[in-house]
């Protein structure tokens, strides 16, 4: 039994989502191999080879993998699939995009967003925005799953010395091509791996007011998130959205400002270690999950809180 983990990276750096997925893989099977499919991505393959607990890095380097196109990455995974009992992707935008293409071709029922591994064929996953946890069993010969990164600790990035083996690249599918990327540059930590997240909701009232979170986030070294209501209202970009259909976060400290706490939002943050809620409505559902609640006008509380840190 060997598990193949698909590494997520930008050809230069390995994304931490891969380390969490490797931990899930180690709970499963005897061997763990990691596929690095990229373009000029030798540094990523080297980084992965040092991760504790993996046996082999399979490195495929070709221009058609530069931008992580699902058609090409899935075809590469399929070319290797016969050696594996499990194929795991992180449940990130990239993993969720590619994994089902692999599952379909293997005629396997993919298990999405795994939060616990019970055995080699039995997994737990949330449904209905996390309001229920289903335990599911797969009898597919190759199990394809995406791993919720917040549910598994990161594997140690050092201490391993796996061999790096180069594999032949599949041809470019020619079905799709990459045009451009607009990546927001920010000094802030990445939302899903930040130690502290400060999130704003509709209570902030406008895009300009949303920026009031910035000084607090800077003081706390936090990433900034948003509720769907805030994203819908145009206060914040969509990739800041925390919730059922956005990002799932579980930081040490989550500060919810002007967020009422719809179930869809709670689904994305209720596994945070400590939750602070600031809201003017004492009956807001966010207080039912908050460790510390403060009722009041956020436009007075925010500056006061920032000042006192």
């Amino acid at each position, binding site marked *: 039994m060997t598990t193949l983990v698909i590494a997520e990276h930008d050809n230069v750096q390995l994304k931490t989502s891969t380390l969490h997925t490797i931990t899930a893989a180690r709970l499963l099977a005897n061997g763990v191999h990691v596929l690095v499919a990229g373009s000029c991505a030798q540094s990523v393959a080297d980084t992965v080879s040092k991760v504790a607990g993996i046996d082999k890095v399979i490195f495929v380097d070709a221009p058609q993998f530069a931008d992580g196109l699902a058609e090409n990455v899935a075809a590469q995974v399929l070319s290797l699939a016969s050696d594996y009992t499990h194929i795991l992707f992180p449940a990130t935008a990239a993993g969720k*995009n590619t*994994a089902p293409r692999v599952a379909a071709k293997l005629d396997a029922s*993919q298990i999405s967003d795994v939060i616990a591994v019970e055995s080699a064929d039995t997994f737990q996953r949330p449904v209905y925005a996390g309001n*229920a946890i289903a*335990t599911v069993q797969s*009898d597919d010969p190759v199990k394809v799953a995406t791993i919720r990164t917040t549910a598994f600790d990161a594997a140690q990035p050092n201490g391993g010395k796996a061999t790096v083996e180069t594999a032949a690249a599949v041809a470019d599918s020619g079905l799709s091509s990459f045009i451009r*990327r607009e990546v927001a540059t920010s000094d802030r930590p990445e939302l899903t791996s930040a130690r502290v997240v400060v999130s704003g909701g509709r209570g902030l009232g406008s895009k300009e007011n949303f920026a009031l979170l910035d000084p607090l986030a800077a003081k706390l070294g936090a990433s900034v998130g948003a509720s769907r209501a805030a994203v819908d209202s145009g206060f914040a970009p969509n990739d800041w959205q925390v919730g*059922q259909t956005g990002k799932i976060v579980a930081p040490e*400290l989550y500060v919810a400002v002007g967020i009422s706490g719809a179930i869809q939002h709670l689904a994305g943050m209720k596994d945070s270690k400590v939750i602070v809620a600031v809201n003017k409505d004492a009956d807001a559902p966010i207080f039912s*999950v908050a460790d510390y609640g403060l009722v009041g006008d956020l436009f007075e509380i925010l500056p006061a809180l920032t000042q006192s840190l």
Partner: protein
Amino acid sequence: MKVITAVKRVVDYNVKVRVKADGSGVDIGNVKMSMNPFDEIAVEAATRLKEAGTASEVIAVSCGLTQSQETLRTALAIGADRGVLVETDAELQPLAVAKLLKAVVEKEQPQLVILGKQAIDDDAGQTGQLLAALLDWPQATFASNIEIKDGAAIVTREVDGGLEVLSLRLPAIVTADLRLNEPRYVTLPNIMKAKKKPIEVVKPSDFGIDPSPRLKTLKVVEPPVRKAGVMVPDVATLVAKLKIEAKVI
């Protein structure tokens, strides 16, 4: 060009579901059902392509119980021209739905299929990608903009950290994210018009497809409940608690 849009009947997003006491699933008897919100965005996108003269016909497809006809009527009221229901009582998992949709696609020969990125009941987020792979078509998931030109779909995708733009050779699959559009409010005259639009009902057996679930659900339980903490009177108390009690700052 023809556009197909796939819609799913799900528990309304405002309903907080309850897990059944016997752990066999969630109780969805007597709860409000609606079209999956992301599918509504997909139907709106297809309709706008038709209004712009890019699409010649929009076909809404649903798989599931007879009652899914109501969901198809909603799609017809938004602007789809006709509906197809693949009717079955089977518990449908994404792979089975993708196989059924593939059969409909092969019959209808659309140039574009637009689906929601995720259904809010099983939260699987697979169907569009599965369908794309089964058809060997290109895909663009989590779309926030679609433009059709020169036999290609130029799609902007919401990815971690920002946006990316892909060009897909048609025919292609697109899955809709939140910001693709804001679905229109369905008006009464359009609801009345939708009643006259045709819905064709077919069965999985018509395509020789067995829709039985493959993933076995062993049990469904409530998630661990997070206990509510304390209310603090002011900022100073909050900061003190975070420092001394929680030790997170």
